[in-house]
C-alpha cells in the first residue's frame, strides 16, 4: 500500500458534526486572534504617534489599548484548543502533513508567542520606560506576534494543496511561487482583518467617551476595510483553484456587508456622529462569518474528496493488517511478562541469539556473522574482565556494549553465567601428554610467532591492541584447553588469528599450555 491512508482508529464523531463544530470553534478562535493582532498593531501605532507628537508624558492611550492584550491573547490561545483538536481529528492527514512539511516554523510558533506575550505584557504594565527601549522591545514583540499568523496560514495553505506536498518535500521548506503569492496575500488579508477588528473593539472600549479617539478609530476602520478590498481581490485572484458559484455567493454576502459597514462609517464621519453599536456588531458578524465560511468552503472543495480517498485506502490497509493483529497482541503480552531484572532473562534475551542457549557460540544468528560469536561456555575469566567486555563491547566484532544494564543487572548476569557455565571458575590442566621436545618447540614458536601479537607476557602487544578485534589478555581471559586447541588449529575466522594446523599436535597442545599458564 504505497497510498496515503487515514489513521486506523475510528473518529469519535461523525464527519459532518466534526466539520460544523470545527467551523464554529474556528470562528470563535479567529475573533480573539483578530482582537489580539489588532490590539498589538494599534497600540504600537499609537505609541509611535504620541511619541512623534512629543506627548508620551500626557497620553497613555496606547497603554490602555495594550492592557486589553492580556485578555485577548489568553482567550485566543484557549479558544484555539478546540479548532486544533477538531481539525486534527477531522482532517488528520492534510493538517498534520502541513505541519510536518513546515515543522521547524510550526514549532517556532511557541517561542514567538512566548516572546511577544511577555514583552507586550510588560510594555503594558511598565509606565516609565525610555521611548527608544519601548520602540525596540515593541518592535520585537510585534514582529514575533505577526509572524505567528504567517506560519498558521502557511500550514493551512499547505494542508489545502495536496498536489504540492511532494514538491515541498523535494524542494526543502518552501512553497512554489504561485502558492507563495497566494500565501502572502492571504496572510496580509488576516492582518487587514485584524486592523478592522482591533479598530472596532477599541472604538467601543478604550475610546469610549472621547470623540477625538472615536473619530480616529473610525478612520482606522475605514482604512482597514479599504485595504481589505484590495487584498481580497488579490487573494481571490491567486486562489489555486477557481471557486464555484456557491462559494462566490457566500463571499458576496461578506463583501456586501463590508461595503455597507464602510458606507455607514463614512456617513457617520461626514455627519460627525458616532455609528450605532446596534448596527456595527451584527455587521461585523455578517462580515466575519461569511468570510470564514468562504475559506471553509474552499478548503472543503480541495480536501473532502481526498478525505474520502484516504478513508477507503485506510480500510484496505486495515484489512491487510488484520491477519497480524492477534499475533501482535500475543507478542505484546509476552513482552509485558518478560522482566529484565534477572541474569537468566537477560542472558536468554540479550545473549542467546548469538552465543546460543548452551553458550557454545551457535545461536540462531551465528550463521550471519563472519567472526563467529565466542563459545562463552569455554571461557574462563575474571568478573572484572567480563564486566569490562559487557560495558564496552568488543571492537571489530558484533559484540555490542551492554552498559544500558545498570551495575546490579550486570552483576546478576555475571553471576548467572558463572553459575551455569562456570565462567569465573578454574582452568583445568591440559590432559594431553606433551613431550618435552614438543614443549620446547612450542616455546620457540610462541616467542617467534605468537608473541608478535600476543606479547611475551600474553597480554597483547600495544600494536596488536589496535586490531579489530584485539587479541585477548591471557592473564585474565582464557579458553578451556580443548577450545584453545581448536582455535590454534583452525584459527579464529574473521580475525588476525590464523590456523596453525601445520604444527604437530603435541606442539599445539604445548601452545595451549603456554597461554593458559599465563593466567594469574
Amino acid at each position, binding site marked *: 500500500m*504505497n497510498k496515503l491512508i487515514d489513521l*486506523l482508529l475510528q473518529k469519535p464523531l461523525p464527519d459532518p458534526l466534526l466539520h460544523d463544530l470545527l467551523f464554529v470553534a474556528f470562528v470563535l478562535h479567529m475573533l480573539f486572534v483578530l482582537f489580539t493582532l489588532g490590539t498589538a498593531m494599534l497600540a504600537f501605532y499609537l505609541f509611535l504617534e504620541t511619541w512623534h507628537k512629543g506627548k508620551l508624558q500626557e497620553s497613555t492611550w496606547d497603554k490602555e489599548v495594550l492592557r486589553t492584550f492580556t485578555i485577548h491573547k*489568553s482567550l485566543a490561545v*484557549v479558544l484555539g484548543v478546540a479548532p486544533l483538536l477538531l481539525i486534527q481529528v477531522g482532517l488528520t492527514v492534510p493538517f498534520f502533513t502541513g505541519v510536518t*512539511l513546515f515543522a521547524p516554523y510550526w514549532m517556532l510558533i511557541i517561542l514567538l508567542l512566548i516572546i511577544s506575550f511577555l514583552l507586550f505584557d510588560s510594555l503594558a504594565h511598565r509606565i516609565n520606560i525610555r521611548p527608544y527601549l519601548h520602540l525596540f522591545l515593541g518592535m520585537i514583540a510585534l514582529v514575533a506576534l505577526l509572524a505567528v499568523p504567517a506560519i498558521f496560514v502557511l500550514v493551512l495553505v499547505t494542508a489545502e494543496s495536496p498536489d504540492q506536498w511532494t514538491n515541498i518535500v523535494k524542494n526543502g521548506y518552501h512553497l512554489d511561487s504561485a502558492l507563495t503569492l497566494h500565501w502572502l496575500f492571504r496572510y496580509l488579508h488576516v492582518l487587514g482583518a485584524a486592523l478592522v477588528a482591533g479598530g472596532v473593539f477599541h472604538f467601543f472600549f478604550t475610546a469610549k467617551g472621547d470623540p477625538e479617539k472615536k473619530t480616529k478609530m473610525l478612520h482606522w476602520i475605514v482604512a482597514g476595510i479599504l485595504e481589505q478590498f484590495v487584498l481580497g481581490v488579490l487573494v481571490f485572484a491567486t486562489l489555486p483553484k477557481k471557486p464555484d458559484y456557491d462559494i462566490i455567493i457566500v463571499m458576496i454576502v461578506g463583501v456586501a456587508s463590508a461595503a455597507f459597514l464602510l458606507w455607514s462609517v463614512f456617513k457617520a464621519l461626514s455627519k460627525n456622529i458616532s455609528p450605532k453599536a446596534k448596527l456595527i456588531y451584527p455587521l461585523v458578524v455578517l462580515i466575519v462569518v461569511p468570510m470564514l465560511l468562504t475559506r471553509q468552503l474552499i478548503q472543503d472543495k480541495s480536501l473532502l474528496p481526498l478525505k474520502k480517498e484516504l478513508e477507503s485506502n485506510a480500510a484496505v490497509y486495515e484489512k*491487510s493488517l488484520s491477519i497480524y493483529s492477534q499475533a501482535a497482541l500475543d507478542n505484546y503480552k509476552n513482552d509485558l511478562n518478560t522482566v529484565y531484572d534477572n541474569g537468566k532473562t537477560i542472558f536468554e534475551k540479550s545473549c542467546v541469539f548469538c552465543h546460543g542457549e548452551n553458550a557454545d557460540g551457535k545461536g540462531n*544468528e551465528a550463521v550471519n556473522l563472519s567472526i563467529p560469536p565466542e563459545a562463552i561456555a569455554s571461557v574462563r575469566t575474571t568478573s572484572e574482565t567480563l564486566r569490562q567486555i559487557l560495558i564496552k563491547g568488543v571492537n571489530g566484532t558484533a559484540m555490542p556494549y551492554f552498559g544500558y544494564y545498570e*551495575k546490579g543487572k550486570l552483576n546478576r548476569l555475571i553471576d548467572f553465567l558463572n553459575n551455569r557455565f562456570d565462567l569465573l571458575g578454574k582452568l583445568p590442566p591440559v590432559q594431553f601428554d606433551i613431550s618435552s621436545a614438543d614443549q620446547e618447540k612450542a616455546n620457540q614458536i610462541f616467542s617467534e610467532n605468537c608473541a608478535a601479537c600476543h606479547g611475551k607476557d600474553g597480554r597483547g602487544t600495544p600494536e596488536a591492541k589496535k586490531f579489530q578485534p584485539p587479541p585477548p589478555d591471557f592473564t585474565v581471559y582464557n579458553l578451556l584447553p580443548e577450545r584453545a586447541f581448536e582455535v590454534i588449529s583452525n584459527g579464529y575466522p574473521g580475525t588476525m588469528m590464523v590456523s596453525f594446523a601445520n604444527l604437530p599436535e603435541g606442539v599445539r597442545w604445548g601452545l595451549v599450555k603456554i597461554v593458559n599458564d599465563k593466567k594469574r
Partner: protein
Amino acid sequence: MEFPIFQVPYLGNGMTIALNAVLHIIIVQGITTGVITMIALAEYIGFKKSSEHWENFAKQLLKPTLIIITGVGSVTGVGIWFITSALSPRGIGLMLRIFFWPWFVEWLVFAVEVIVILLYYFTWEKWSGLKKKQHIYLGFGYSLLAIISAVLITGILGFMLTSDGWPWNRSFWSAFFNPSFIPQLFLRLGIAFGLGSVFTSAYLLFTRQDPMFRKEALRLFGKVALVFLLIGLLSTWWYFSVVPSRFKTHAVFSVLTSHFSQHPEFFWFLNIFGALILALFSFTALTRSVSISRLLVIPAILFYCCFITEYERVREFIRGPFLLPGYLYSNQVQLDESLFWKENGALKNSYWYSQAGNSADTTAQGAYLFAQNCSSCHTIDGLNDIKDRLRGRTEDGIYVILGNTHQMVPFMPPFSGTEAERRVLSTFLYRLTSGEIKLKAPSRFMFQKGKS
C-alpha cells in the same frame, strides 16, 4: 507512515519535546496550580484576620503569576501539542481519537480557567467589602479548575505507560481509568502544592520585611510544604507499585543513562539528598527560622524542578519500545504493521518513500529506513547519535543487532521491515558510522541521494 518524517537536528525529537514539556509542567504544577492556591489562601486569611499584610501579599504576588501563567504556562502547554504534532503526528493523532472527549472537556475547562483567572485579577480592587467573599471563591474556584485539568490530562498520560486492557478491549473507560491514573494524580498534585508553597515562600522571604508577618506566613507555607512533600513521596511509591515490572526495571537506568549506569549509588544518593533538602526546608519554615529558610529555599526549588524533570524522564523513558503500549511502537509503527512489514516490506508500503523517485538507490533506502525505524530516538551527529551507538561494530554485526533490537535492548522497538531491508539498513548504518556516507545532521531523510 502517512506523514513525511521530520527530525530536529542535533537536539533530537525527545529532547525537544522534553525541554518544552518540563518547563510547562514546572509552571503549570508549581505556579498555575500551586502558587494560585497559595494566593487564594493568603487572600482568605487576610480577609478572616482583616490583615493588610496578607491581602497585599496575595495581591502583589498575583501580577507576576498571571503574566507567567498566561504568557508561558498556557503557551508551553499548547506547545507540547504543537511540537508532538510535528515530531510524532501519528502518535498524537491516535491519542486525539482515543481521548477526544477528555480533550474536548479540557478545552471548556481551560477556557473557564482563563476567564476566571482574568476576572480574579481584574476584579481584585472592585470586588471588595461585601463582594470580597465572592472574590475569594473565584480564587479557590480557579484551583478547583486547575485540579480538574490535572485529572483530565493525567488520565491520558497514565495511559501512555499503563494502557492495561485497552489493546484488547479498546474501551475508552479502561484507557482513561488506567492503573497509574490515580497514583499519578496524587503525585502531580503533591508536587503542585508542594512546589507552590516553596515558590510562595521564596517570594515571601525575598520581598517581605515585616518580621511578625513573615514568620506567621512562613510557618503556614512550611506546613503546606511538609504535608504535600509527604503526599508526594507516598504517591511516588504508590505509583511505582502499579507500573508493570517490565517497564519499572529501567527506571534507574533512565535517570543515569549509559554515562553513569555503572554507578547506581549516584541515583540513590542524589534522590535521597534532594528529598532531605526539601524536608529540611519544610521543617525550618515550620519552625519559623527565616535565615536558614532563606538559605534553603532556592535549593528546594531547584530540587523540586529536578524531581519533576526526573519523574517525567522516567515516565517517558520506561514505556520504552511503546508510544501507546499494545498498539504503537515509539517509532510510530503499529505493532501489527511491524509484522506486516516484516513479510511484505516497509518501503513498498510507504507512501512518502514511493514519492522519492530514487527507490533503487540503496543509500536513499537506508536513509528512509533509518528515518522510519530509528529517528524518533536517534540522531545523526546529535544527541543519542546512532554513530556513537554503533561505533566498533562490524557490518554483519549491525545486521544481527538490527534483527534483535527488541529483545536485546528492552526499551527498543523491533526493526520493521524484510530481511532484505534489514540488510540495506545495516549497510547504510555501517557506512554512515565509518564515514563513507556523509550525512550532516539531516532533518528529513527522503530524497537522500547516494554518495559513495
